[in-house]
């Protein structure tokens, strides 16, 4: 977790809010640092995390997690973390057909229907068990990322349905959080991606959008981070507050600053 980002979001692992859908979005840049941030944040907050890792292998997240101060292997052994590795499972499903339903079994089918098996997997992973031992704070679902599901043949409406079901169960029923990353295709005219992004933006409480700079590549500023708070839980706070910061990612931390009003000069 990046302490600077916690300050910007005004949260701490101890005081994390519950029942929220956070949307992570990136346009023209790589927003995966946000996924690493939230993964380590919720593990440090002692929450039970279900991580649907569709883009990279588990060891990649583990190594970055170690830089940020959490050990994913320890969390997995302890039962705090449940990981679904997309890449590894895809190979298993495709080449070694199994009898029992797999969360990603839509890969085998010609017309990928809906994501019900995936939802069932999430529900089983995060269901609160009251067996008397040290309970985790709240269940959290983290998905990296939803745009890959579109590439694999799932329709945007099916993905929206999946998020809706997860929200109803994880956020409303179990008072947990859902965090998902979606790519904004920008001017690539990807209609399915636009449908997914607009639908999710409408439903989410907090949107973090990492954008590449409009002026192009810059060595010292990697991009711009827009934070948008929507649907505040207290009626007194102003609606739809938004902040913009420019960031630079370093080896183990992130450096954020206000965008300068003058044109960037060396």
């Amino acid at each position: 977790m990046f302490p600077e980002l916690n300050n910007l979001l005004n949260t701490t692992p101890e005081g994390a809010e519950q029942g929220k859908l956070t949307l992570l979005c990136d346009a023209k840049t790589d927003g995966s640092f946000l996924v690493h941030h939230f993964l380590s944040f919720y593990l440090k907050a002692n929450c039970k995390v279900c991580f649907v890792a569709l883009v990279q292998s588990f060891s990649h997240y583990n190594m970055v997690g170690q830089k940020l101060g959490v050990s994913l292997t320890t969390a997995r052994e302890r039962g705090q973390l449940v990981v679904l590795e997309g890449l590894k499972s895809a190979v298993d499903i495709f080449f070694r057909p199994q009898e029992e339903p797999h969360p990603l079994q839509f890969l085998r089918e010609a017309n990928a229907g809906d994501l019900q098996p995936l939802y069932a997997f999430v529900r089983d992973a995060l269901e609160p068990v009251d067996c008397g031992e040290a309970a985790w704070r709240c269940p959290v679902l983290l998905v990296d990322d939803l745009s890959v599901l579109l590439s694999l043949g799932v329709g945007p409406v099916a993905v929206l349905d999946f998020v809706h079901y997860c929200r109803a169960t994880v956020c409303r029923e179990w008072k947990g959080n859902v965090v998902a990353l979606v790519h904004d295709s920008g001017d690539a005219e990807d209609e399915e991606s636009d449908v997914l992004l607009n639908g999710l933006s409408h439903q989410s409480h907090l949107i973090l959008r990492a954008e590449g700079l409009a002026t192009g590549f810059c060595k010292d500023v990697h991009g711009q981070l827009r934070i948008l708070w929507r649907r505040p839980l207290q009626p007194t706070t102003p609606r739809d507050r938004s902040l913009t910061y420019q960031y630079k990612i370093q080896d183990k931390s992130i450096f954020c600053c206000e965008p300068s009003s003058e044109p960037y000069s060396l």
Partner: protein
Amino acid sequence: MAAAGTCGTGTRSTGSMVAAASTNNVTSFQRRGPRASGADSGCSRLVSIAGTRPSVRNGQLLVSTGLPALDQLLGGGLAVGTVLLIEEDKYNIYSPLLFKYFLAEGIVSGHALLVASAKEDPADILQKLPAPLIDDSYKKECDEDVCSHKMEPDIKMKIAWRYQLLPKMEAGPVSSSRFGHYYDISKRIPQELIETSKWHGFFLPEKISSAFNVESCSLTPGYMKLLQFIQNIIYKEGFDGSNPQKKQKNILRIGIQNLGSPLWGDDICCTENCDTSHSLTKFLYILRGLLRTSLSACIITMPTHLIQNKAVIARVTNLSDTVVGLESFIGSEKETNPLYKDYHGLIHIRQIPRLNNLIYDISDVKDLAFKLKKKLFTIESLLRAPTLFLPQVVSFARGCQRPS
């Protein structure tokens, strides 16, 4: 033969140097190999694979793309377990060169090859690979022979001698532990090198003509067969460590040519909304899954300029690890632009992966152009120091006096 003998000791000593250097570094941080399933205890055995080196940044195992200039732009090389996507130039003149460099590098380093094409027979592709220029072990061996020469003629001899020595390379197979070699495109690779290398070919017209029992899956039959072939080789030859009979200590280099073109049975280059629009992206996803769990690296050339649907190009880019685009000047208005007169095209590094890390090595130089000389394919930066200032600087230096 004396030549072969000295060559042998030369490579062995370099090899042990590499291993010794790496074992010293293991104590400073846990060096993880690629995501091969047998990699937990495999640190020491992985660093001894010829033709690879660990990345400076995070110990990731890298292989050379065959073009040292491209290796530098990609942050040291291509990481094992990843996909390098080359977006072909308009008339597919220069991208086959990058493809051939990658395969030639594999042969010289002693890696196993898997060549897949729908257009050309893999055996023919291998015949047309460029010949490698000499490497250091032979250079050391010849230094002993020419020890009687003076220093300056030695330097000249060394430079000219590289081309003179090519015929002498027939002595035995070239196995080099160096990372990255130079190739001479005007010459073909020696036949012995191809024969001693281990390669597997996938030629689509041969494979698809067999019995057509395709289970209903949204992958086109060509992609399906290719994936099964790749998975078969990886499992049988033990590149993913799961085969109990075979413990492989080598890298598999996979080369797929013109993926996405209509010859593969895919409509994605022909129409904007085709039925098999998810075939290519699903293929890439499953391929990446295979690569991540094995000791292999893959190069794919794709005619993205033919893909009608821009959304698919964006998705394909997101599903690949490293993406390099070639843009040739032939037939475009840039051909007559004086800025580009020395070059044949532009090369764009569109994407570099962040593997096991939050940051990556990205080159500051964004304006890169390539040039195909008679023997070499070079990549240069378009930014050059302004030469207009030079005469004024010289006159200033002549005019001013040194302060005493």
